[in-house]
């Protein structure tokens, strides 16, 4: 910080709205790719668990271990293989979503009452119809809850992905704010990350409420 410069300069923020928008865009793109990829993989794993319940333990163990590795280490670990690339960042980010998403999807599916499943079988649903028309809709609130946690976590982690050159809001916080000793950028970056997380979280909640009007009656 240079002498006589104010700690926070609103002018800078207003002058750089374009850059800010660009960084938000980058940040969200990396986040969405990670959550979508993580969801697709987790969904597949959860369906495997639905069919072969004994897979659940090993899958949870592996994804749990992945979750426990410090994020920076995980980013760095893959650099020798995949370089300073989006792929490296996504591999790390997706690994973090797995434990959250698999657990919530499996819990959601297992939470479907046994009598509901028996009624569905007795009325002549095929296995696939039962999954898509009965079990998944009923599991939806818990699945969306998992997606919310995974998304908010990922938005935070993407900030760190800037260390391997992924841009995003982390670029403001670290590259401009810290390295160029310009606190305004750091503060702005952090504030926008928090704001973004909150908006996305509430947005997903609103979507879930819309999709599951029936859950309201039971406080879901």
């Amino acid at each position, binding site marked *: 910080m240079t002498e006589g410069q104010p700690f926070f300069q609103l002018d800078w923020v207003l002058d750089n709205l374009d850059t800010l928008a660009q960084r938000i865009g980058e940040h969200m793109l990396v986040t969405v790719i990670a959550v979508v990829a993580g969801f697709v993989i987790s969904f597949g794993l959860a369906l495997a668990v639905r069919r072969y319940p004994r897979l659940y333990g090993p899958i949870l163990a592996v994804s749990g271990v992945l979750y426990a590795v410090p994020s920076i280490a995980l980013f760095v670990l893959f650099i020798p293989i995949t370089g300073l690339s989006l792929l490296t960042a996504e591999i790390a980010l997706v690994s973090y979503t797995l434990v959250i998403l698999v657990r919530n999807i499996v819990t959601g599916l297992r939470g479907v009452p046994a009598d509901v499943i028996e009624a569905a079988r007795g009325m002549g649903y095929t296995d696939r119809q039962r999954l898509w028309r009965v079990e998944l*809709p009923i599991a939806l609130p818990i699945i969306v809850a998992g997606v919310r946690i995974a998304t908010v976590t990922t938005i935070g982690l993407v900030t760190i992905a800037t260390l391997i050159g992924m841009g995003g809001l982390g670029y403001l916080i670290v590259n401009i704010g810290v390295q160029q000793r310009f606190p305004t950028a750091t503060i702005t970056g952090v504030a926008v990350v928090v704001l973004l997380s909150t908006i996305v979280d509430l947005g997903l909640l609103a979507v879930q409420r819309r999709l599951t009007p029936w859950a309201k009656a039971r406080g879901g």
Partner: protein
Amino acid sequence: MSSSAAVVRLEHVGKRYGSEGGPEAVSDLSLEIPAGEICVLVGPSGCGKTTTMKMINRLIEPTSGRITIDGEDVMALPAVELRRRIGYVIQQVGLFPHLTVAQNVAVVPRLLRWPEARVRERTSELLDLVRLQPSTYGDRYPAALSGGERQRVGVARALAADPPLMLMDEPFGAVDPILRDRLQNEFLRLQAQVRKTIVFVTHDVDEAIKMADRIAILQKGGVLAQYDTPDAILAAPASDFVAHFVGADRGLKRLSLGRVRDLELGKPVTARAGEPRAELRRRLDEAATDYVLLLDEKDRPLGWIGRGDLSGDGAVGVDDAIPGSPTLEPESTLRDALSVMLGSSVQLGVVVDDDERVLGVVSVDAISEVLRTPTTRPT
């Protein structure tokens, strides 16, 4: 299968769990369930009654024997197609919480890809049938319903595609006794309209006696102990097991099956206010009985007058009658009739019609006569 009611036949059906030599849940069971009847499978736990029922819609596959519905082997169809043709009601109802009442009822028609207009029409028809106003209840979610309402929706849902056969697994087992009684009565009224073939599982003998046209009593290992009408089973249990299972009060249970209208009514000696006592004494002597029934001008009973109160001269009046003589209706059960008679001073029950006019009388003797003669259940 026709869409009205189906004949279900079980031929030497068995279910063995595990490999050869494993325990048999059901063994060599043969039953024929006539179209349009309620067949109740009843027995202690472990008797294979639920297993037997679930083999009909192949939620459990039999290991031996053959099950046919209207002559068609259940194994001839893919299981899901078979199940869509059979109504299914379970104890916890199993309504889909994410679907409205109307959508729940429409499940099977939609699986069968009925045109949307027909689905809607059928849905409201069924809600009306189970006495739930479609405009009030159609858009509600199951979480907003009472236990009784949920059970009714479950029955409507099972009837949706007009199946010729319904399977009901302890459908009224999870509700309190008062509600259960009401739901049972409602269901019997409904069945009188729709006349489906129904396989009904319960562990409750009284429910079985009340609901059944025919009862199949199973004992451990899925062995058929007796298969007959409730009246015949109560009148003549086939074994000690059956006698014990239906209970020591089976005589009284039989009485609750019979109705006053099934009895031949006796003709009472009658009188009207103002008739001379001497004349009434003469009538009692002629009929060799001790009580005369006083009627009003519209043939409605005012009460009994005993021989002891007819001494002397003059005319009888309303004041001479023993007040509070209870009356019975043709629809009263024999059990209720007996109870009323035992509680009154004159052990004769006066049966009246809808306008309270006297139809005749029943005596305690007439009722005990019923218990001595094993007859089939009057319908």
